C-alpha cells in the first residue's frame, strides 16, 4: 500500500467514524465531487462495508434457518414440548438449589456487591438537586417529586421529556435513577444503556450506573458483569472512575 493510499484510507475511515470537524466534512464532500480517484477510493470503502455487513446478515440467516428447522421438528414430535417443560423445570430446580447453597454456605457471598451499591445509592441518590425558581420546568418538577419520594409521578415527568427528545441525557439519567430506587432494575438498565450511547457527552455516567444496577440486582452473572464494566470505566477514564477503582480494589 502506498503512503498516499494509506493516508486516504485513514482519512476516509475517520470521516465515516464521525471524527472530522464540520469544515473537514464539507471538504470531504467537495473532494468526492471533484476528485474521481478519491471518489473511487471512498466508494470502494463503502462497498467493503456493505460486503462485510451482508456476510454478517447471511450468517445470521443461516443460524436462524437452523433454529427454525429444529423448532419445526420439535413441534411435530408429540409429547416433546411437555417433556421439555419438565426437563426445564427440573434443571431450574437444581440450579435454584445450587445458587441457594452457595449463598448460604459461603460467608459474605452476595453481600459485598449489594452493600457497595447500597451505600452509593444512599449517599448519591437520596435527593436530586433542584434549581431554585424553576418550578415550571418539567425536569425540575420531576426532581422535586423524586425528593418527596413520589417516584411514579417523577418518572412520568422524565418519560414525558423523553417522548419529545429520546436522547435527553438528564431525563435518561433521572429516569434510570427513579427506576433503580423503585427496584425496577431491568428498566433502570435500559435507561442507563441509552444514556451510555448519548453521543458527545463530556462526562457520561451511563456505564458506571449500569454496573451499579447490576450490583444491586445481584442475579446470577450480574456481579461478574458489573466487575467487567467497572474495569472498562477505569480503563476508559469514564465518569465514576474513582468509585470504580475503589470498588475493584475491595472485590
Amino acid at each position: 500500500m502506498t503512503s498516499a493510499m494509506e493516508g486516504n484510507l485513514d482519512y476516509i475511515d475517520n470521516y465515516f467514524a464521525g471524527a472530522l470537524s464540520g469544515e473537514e466534512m464539507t471538504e470531504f464532500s467537495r473532494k468526492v465531487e471533484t476528485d474521481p480517484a478519491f471518489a473511487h477510493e471512498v466508494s470502494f470503502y463503502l462497498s467493503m462495508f456493505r460486503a462485510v455487513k451482508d456476510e454478517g446478515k447471511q450468517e445470521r440467516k443461516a443460524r436462524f434457518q437452523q433454529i427454525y428447522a429444529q423448532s419445526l421438528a420439535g413441534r411435530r414430535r408429540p409429547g416433546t414440548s411437555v417433556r421439555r417443560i419438565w426437563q426445564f423445570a427440573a434443571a431450574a430446580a437444581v440450579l435454584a438449589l445450587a445458587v441457594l447453597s452457595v449463598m448460604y454456605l459461603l460467608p459474605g457471598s452476595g453481600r459485598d456487591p449489594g452493600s457497595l451499591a447500597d451505600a452509593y445509592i444512599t449517599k448519591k441518590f437520596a435527593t436530586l438537586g433542584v434549581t431554585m425558581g424553576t418550578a415550571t420546568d418539567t425536569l425540575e418538577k420531576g426532581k422535586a417529586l423524586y425528593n418527596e419520594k413520589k417516584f411514579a409521578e417523577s418518572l412520568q415527568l422524565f418519560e414525558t421529556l423523553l417522548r419529545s427528545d429520546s436522547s435527553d441525557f438528564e431525563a435518561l439519567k433521572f429516569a434510570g435513577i427513579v427506576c433503580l430506587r423503585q427496584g425496577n432494575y431491568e428498566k433502570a438498565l435500559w435507561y442507563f444503556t441509552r444514556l451510555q450511547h448519548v453521543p458527545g457527552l463530556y462526562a457520561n455516567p451511563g456505564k458506571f450506573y449500569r454496573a451499579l444496577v447490576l450490583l444491586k440486582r445481584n442475579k446470577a452473572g450480574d456481579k461478574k458483569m458489573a466487575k467487567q464494566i467497572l474495569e472498562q470505566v477505569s480503563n476508559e477514564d469514564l465518569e465514576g472512575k474513582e468509585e470504580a477503582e475503589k470498588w475493584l480494589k475491595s472485590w
Partner: protein
Amino acid sequence: MMKPEEYDLLMGLQQTGTGRRKYEEMLFRRYDYFIREAQKKYGFDGEDAFDMYSDSVISAIDHIADGRFEGRSSLKTWLYQIFHNKCVSLLRRKATNKNSIHRTVAIPDMFLELSDAAQSVLDKLIQEADFEKLKLKLGHLGENCRRMLALWSDGSSDREIAAVMEYKTADVVKTGRLRCLEKLRQLYHSAQ
C-alpha cells in the same frame, strides 16, 4: 409500552461480540410464529415467509444495537410493524411482477451527511463494484480480520472491538482494521 421481560433481551442485543448471538437467537425464537402468520395472512410460501421474518429480525437487531429503538411501544409491536411492512412490500413487488432482488443497501450513517452531489457520485460508483467477487475475497481473509471487520460493520467502535478481542488499545484495533481492509482491496484487485 415495553414489557419487563423485554428489557433483558434488549440489554443482551446491545452487547458487542459473541455474547449477543444468544440474544439474537432468543429474539428470533420468541416471535417465530409470525412466519406461520405470513403464510396464512399473506399467502406466502414457507421460504418467502421465513425470509420476511428473518429480515425483520435482522433489521430490528441493527436498530437495537445502534440505540435507535426507543421503547415507545413493546418490542413485539415494533417488530410486527417492521415485519408487516416488509410483507406488504413483497406483496406489491409480486403483484407488479418485479423480478429484481430487493436488497436494503447497508451504508454507514455518515454517508447521509455527504452533500447530495457526493452521494450521487458514490451511488453510481458503488453499483460498479463486483459485490459477489468482494464477498468471495472476504473469505480469503484470516479469522481475526473477518471477526474484526464483522464487529466494525455491526457498529462496534474500535474501543469496543479492543475489549471484545482483547487488544491493548483502540489505536491498535484501528491500525489492524485498516490493514484488513487494505488486504481485502488487494485481494479484490489481484489477478487470481
